[in-house]
């Protein structure tokens, strides 16, 4: 059933003269999932990159058409599984927007706290994985040390470590665990102490800097044209943090900076993410002692019905802008739902960024794009 005739045609015959076509993926150590890139090489230099997607396409958009407004949220945890919580948040926000549900303050703050913890966890995993792409194995274990604390907090509060499913339209599914504040504070202290280790091991490493500086450059104009978002756009100096542009939940009551860099290379994307983790810590510190008392969930009907119309909500996930576009016909299930995934647009810029560089640079570029394949395929 799964004959990829076109791909076979591409790879058996060596392209034109002086060209070597290699398949990176669907199983490859650097693609972190089932991404398939058909790369045309001239020696070590890349001439063209052609992504082939769909190896983990589950048609979540079609599935959601037959699930009601409470159920479909949980399917989206399986899109960008590293920021599952933020995906759920986007869906919940969209439903709330349509139903005009007023979310209690406590729920808003809890959502933001969890979203920022998720962001740190995601960036930590990315940091380790990217270092591994460049051949350094050790940072992976150091980043997982702190990430483990976050997953423990998640497990205690939501009952799951990766796909949390903690959101529901109108708030969160249940209240915080009593140890939550204590554990988060502990984590913040440890993280601040240990973050210097990454600096020593990675940021100031000569080889690392040589591998990433000036590699995979994307100009601001191109970043906008390719629809890049998140750290990829911000590393090129494009203002794109939706937490600032269109504050949702409790982001309007916290102070933080949108991290921008103007270099647009892999190193800039690295620095942006590392600084973003520190901003997330800043947000957590502001909120952790100020969780308002009250309900953690608004009173909602058992069966949710969105009025006829179209609703679009967008949030800033760890990878960029996630949009949820719901077209409702007034029923209990969405008529059509579209997820605008950040990875899809970022991937489309890969050919532009990596063509003309070496294979080694491709790994640096791809690593700093932070691609999560289920997010791209959906």
């Amino acid at each position, binding site marked *: *059933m*799964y*004959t*990829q*005739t*076109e791909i076979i045609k591409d790879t058996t015959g060596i392209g034109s003269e002086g060209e070597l076509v290699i398949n990176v993926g669907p199983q490859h150590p650097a693609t972190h999932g089932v991404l398939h890139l058909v790369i045309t090489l001239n020696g070590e230099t890349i001439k063209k990159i052609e*992504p*082939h*997607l*769909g190896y983990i*396409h589950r*048609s979540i*958009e*079609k599935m959601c058409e*037959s*699930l009601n407004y409470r159920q479909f949220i949980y399917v989206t945890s399986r899109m960008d599984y590293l920021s599952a919580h933020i995906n759920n948040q986007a869906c919940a926000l969209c439903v709330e*927007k349509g139903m005009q549900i007023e979310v209690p303050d406590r729920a808003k703050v809890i959502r933001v706290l969890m979203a920022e913890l998720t962001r740190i966890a995601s960036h930590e995993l990315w940091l380790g994985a990217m270092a591994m792409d460049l051949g350094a194995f050790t940072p992976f274990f150091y980043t997982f040390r702190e990430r483990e604390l976050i997953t423990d907090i998640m497990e205690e509060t939501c009952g799951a470590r990766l796909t949390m499913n903690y959101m529901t339209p109108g708030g969160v599914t249940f209240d915080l665990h009593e140890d939550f504040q204590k554990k988060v504070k502990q984590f913040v202290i440890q993280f601040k102490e240990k973050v210097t280790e990454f600096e020593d091991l990675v940021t100031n490493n000569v080889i690392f800097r040589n591998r990433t500086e000036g590699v995979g450059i994307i100009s601001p104009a*191109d970043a*906008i*044209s*390719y*629809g890049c*978002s998140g750290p990829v756009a911000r590393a090129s100096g*494009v*203002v*794109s943090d939706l937490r600032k*542009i*269109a504050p949702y939940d409790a982001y309007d009551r916290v102070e933080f900076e949108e991290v921008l860099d103007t270099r647009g290379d892999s190193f800039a994307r690295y620095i942006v993410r590392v600084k973003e983790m520190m901003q997330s810590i800043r947000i957590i510190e502001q909120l952790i002692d100020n969780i308002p008392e009250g309900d953690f969930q608004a009173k909602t009907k058992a069966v949710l019905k969105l009025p006829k*119309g*179209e*609703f*679009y909500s*967008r949030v800033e996930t760890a990878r960029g*802008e996630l*949009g949820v*576009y719901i*077209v409702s016909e007034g029923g209990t299930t969405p*008529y*059509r739902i*579209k997820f*605008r995934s950040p990875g*899809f*647009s970022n*991937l*489309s*810029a890969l050919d*532009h960024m990596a063509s003309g560089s070496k294979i080694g640079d491709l790994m640096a570029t791809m690593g700093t794009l932070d691609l999560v394949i289920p997010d791209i*395929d959906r």
Partner: protein
Amino acid sequence: MTNEAIKEFITSAAPTASFDETGEWLNISVEPGSWKDLAHKLRNAELPFDYLFCLTCVDWKTHLTVVYHLSSSKNRQINIVVKSKLDAAKPEIETVCDIWRTAEFLEREVFELFGVVFLNHPDLRRLILTDDFEGFPLRKDFEDPINMIKL
């Protein structure tokens, strides 16, 4: 730039366009034929709509609607939604991937999931589905007795 100013600008560029302001953002409906021209003008307007952040399609059974969500990198608060009705039997519209490069992949996705043909697209091939896949899975009339479970 207010909604009124945008409306004025679009009316001057595409006289047939109609507007709908009931939703969160300004909705603009255009004829498929005049879309490409309007897209060029929107991209090069005083406040350039240079950020195409979502491109999708909705199957309304009688017809298809291609939906473009546009924003400006100069002011991300301003968003507009452009819609274009297409004939379900022969859905065709001009590509915009020379204006917004992200459209290249987004149009390929819409092409294979909805069967919308984007005219003059440089590389309109399948991106996600296998080559021998039949039908357009996100259309409402798509049936797959093996893999689809009716709830």
